[in-house]
């Protein structure tokens, strides 16, 4: 007679073989991953190409033929300073990607260790750490960005730091719950019974097992960062001129929306494609790694 048991306590960390949350069971999300990868690769490719080549110098102004429509010279037209939109669009992909990468790096560098530590310390201390995390989370990223921009001046770096700080508490929360789940599994107990310390546990067991959630968080963080960069640039708190960036282009273009709508639509489209790409990728990976959608709080 074998009896499977389940009590409310271990419902949250199912131990039956039916829904092992950390095991890749059904490989879902295929089409989304594919579509997401294609879009993201396209954006990466743009950034890569722009490092070596753009049709024209993206910062060269030709005020005489400003706001020109598409032509052989300016494939996608020119903006209010007569810069080539196609070139700016290519070069402008670097900032959002950089901001995405930076944000995720900062957010993870802070959030992952914090989340793991909060999960591994005993319950009391962990609870206080999470309360601290709550306070941090009460500072929305945009608020941080506005304040940091005032303190250090608006720049890509301040945007990255602010957005990264904004991302970190959410990451910490997800990492903590993931870690708790890993730690509640018997293999974590087994590792302790094998005489292994906390660091080993964190590196060998926890990190590999929350990899899925982390990847999902990263792609989502990327998408959020790209949107936030655009919003910050729109407020004049993001990337300062003359560096090309999609957000900046949107900001420059909005004053001529009625006159030359293309100056806005191109960067708008670029942002949408990049965000869509990362979101699709994230959703697909989530379906694959973690069918339960983690509520980010």
């Amino acid at each position, binding site marked *: *007679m*074998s*009896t*499977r*048991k*389940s*009590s*409310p306590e271990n*419902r949250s960390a199912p*131990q039956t*073989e039916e829904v*092992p949350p*950390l*095991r890749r069971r059904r490989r879902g999300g295929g089409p989304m991953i594919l579509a997401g990868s294609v879009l993201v690769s396209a954006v990466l490719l743009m950034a890569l190409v722009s490092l070596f080549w753009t049709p024209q110098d993206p910062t060269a102004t030709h005020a005489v033929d400003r706001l020109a429509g598409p032509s052989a010279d300016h494939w996608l037209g020119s903006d209010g300073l007569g810069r080539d939109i196609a070139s700016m669009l290519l070069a402008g992909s670097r900032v959002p990607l950089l901001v995405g990468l930076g944000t995720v790096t900062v957010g993870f560098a802070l959030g992952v260790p914090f989340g793991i530590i909060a999960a591994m310390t005993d319950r*009391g201390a962990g609870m206080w750490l999470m309360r601290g995390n709550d306070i941090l989370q009460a500072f929305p990223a945009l608020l941080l960005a506005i304040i940091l921009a005032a303190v250090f001046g608006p720049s890509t770096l301040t945007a990255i730091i602010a957005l990264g700080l904004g991302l970190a508490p959410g990451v910490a929360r997800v990492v903590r719950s993931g870690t708790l789940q890993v730690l509640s*599994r*018997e*293999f974590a*107990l*087994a*590792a*302790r*019974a*094998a*005489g*292994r*310390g906390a660091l080993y546990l964190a590196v*060998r*067991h926890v990190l*590999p*097992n929350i*990899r899925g959630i982390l990847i999902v968080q990263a792609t989502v963080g990327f998408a959020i960062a790209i949107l936030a960069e655009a919003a910050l640039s729109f407020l004049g708190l993001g990337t300062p001129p003359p560096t090309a960036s999609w957000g900046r282009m949107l900001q420059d273009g909005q004053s001529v929306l009625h006159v030359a709508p293309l100056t806005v639509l191109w960067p708008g489209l670029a942002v949408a494609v990049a965000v869509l790409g990362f979101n699709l990728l994230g959703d697909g990976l989530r379906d694959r790694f973690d069918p339960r959608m983690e509520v980010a709080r």
Partner: protein
Amino acid sequence: MSVGRAEPLLSVEGLSVRAGADRLVRNIDFSISRGERVGLIGESGSGKSLTCLSVIGLLGPGLHADGRVTLHGGPQPVDLLTAQEKQMATLRGDRISMVFQEPMTALNPLMKVGDQLTESLRIHQPRTTDRRLRMLELLSSVRIPEPARAATVYPHQMSGGQRQRVMLAMAMANEPDLLLADEPTTALDVTVQKQALNLMTEQVRRAGSSLLFVTHDLGVVSEVCDRVIIMRHGQIVESGPLDRVFTAPEHPYTRALMAASALETHPATRRLVTVDGPPPERPDPVETPVPPAGAGAGAVQHETLTEGGSSPVFNEVEDPALRVRDLTRTYGSPGLLGRGRTVRALRGVSFDVAAGQRFGIVGESGCGKSTLLRLLTALDDPSSGQVEVSGQVISRRREKQLRWLRETMQIVFQDPMGSLDPRMAVEDIITEPLRTASRTERSRRVDELLQQVGLPLSSAAKHPHEFSGGQRQRIAIARALVTKPEILIADEAVSALDVSVRAQVLNLLDDLVEEYRLTLVFVSHDLNVVRHSCDVVAVMKAGNIVECGPSADVLESPQHPYTKELVSAIPRLRDKVR
């Protein structure tokens, strides 16, 4: 509209269930007469649930059923596979109902129990006015105490057994013609299970319903059913009246299943009979079955906890491998503002385990078995009392001071999947306890152990998900043995395994315990398993040991009332069939 007993209520012809190209259930035929109680038996994954779900028309998305499933007895027969959703909805809960395996999750957590029950009534008897009365009646018919109060609580406020009763009441609300019960009691403790089964049989009898009872537990089926159907790999391998199948099984699988399920031993080798043919011979079989080492079974005292008396030291020996004194563990803190919730998981446990002894601990869920083991292995600290291993206190020590313990004592967990990190290669898993060994040393040990637990050497590079449950448990055992420990602790090491695999793993454990001369602490809620594997058994209840003594003795002539209850609750198919 009475239907004769011979007349079928349900006839299943050529039922197959496919998921894409996979055929999960293959062309099965059977029928159920009115009032008949049929058991559907088979190991995990054999297609039992899918069969039931096909009948009630609730297969999940992606699954597709073919064949004919006909429900007779109405104005005209209905083919349940092709019936419209609307028609099925009128049948479900009215003429066919189903009780599911998981009482914990099968009820809507946000709805009061009474409302969920009333809903069943309302759907099919929209004009009835005194539904509340009927609902209370139903609750009391499944022996829920204080039905009026119970109707106003939420499912999480009920125990598993109570929830399962509510499920049963819900299913019986409209006195269905056919009740499908999909492993309705596997999630329950033996004692609760027994009550639930009795209740079900009684209800079905009273309403004159037919029953299709799914389980992988032969003992259970023998208490409930008249006829059994045995499935394997999506096919029916044997079916017939209970007596016939159990006394004279025709199909070899049935025979093996029965043997394994009863933990039958092979007369020659004293090894457990397994499903896959004769018990595997070890390369160098142990010549003479060594009686369990240690102080000899006869020296063990059979003691019980007396009512109100202070807890004695059970199984007291000199120079024990493991000495446990007045161990308590209370979970939860008093809370910031006073009244926090605390759980007294252990309430003063004292016992010894002699070197070389096989010490079993039984008790039902939540009685503190795992808590005790965590303290024995110093993975957690007691609230009071202490544990000594080979004379050294291990409780409340820093991890650094316990290095030696990590080598002398190892643990094997309940869930073979959960105790292996899915992201690690088997080699890394097995060598995890070897903190200092060199690479070559490690791979040498891995090879050695894989051989000992009967896995191919090529397993070393694989990951856990590439193994079956039994194989995984072998890996876990290999890991526990890699440091050549003196004491092995097994926490429900076989409860998650299928009956057939269980026997294999128990055999392996037996062999290794002898080979390594291990002191074994074996925890289980399954008395049969403990009887087979241990010389001494301690029975736990609510954080206390209530009885302890030589296992045969304790199980044959239990003294403590709780033990008696426990022993009598074990469904034994032999008793029934004889």
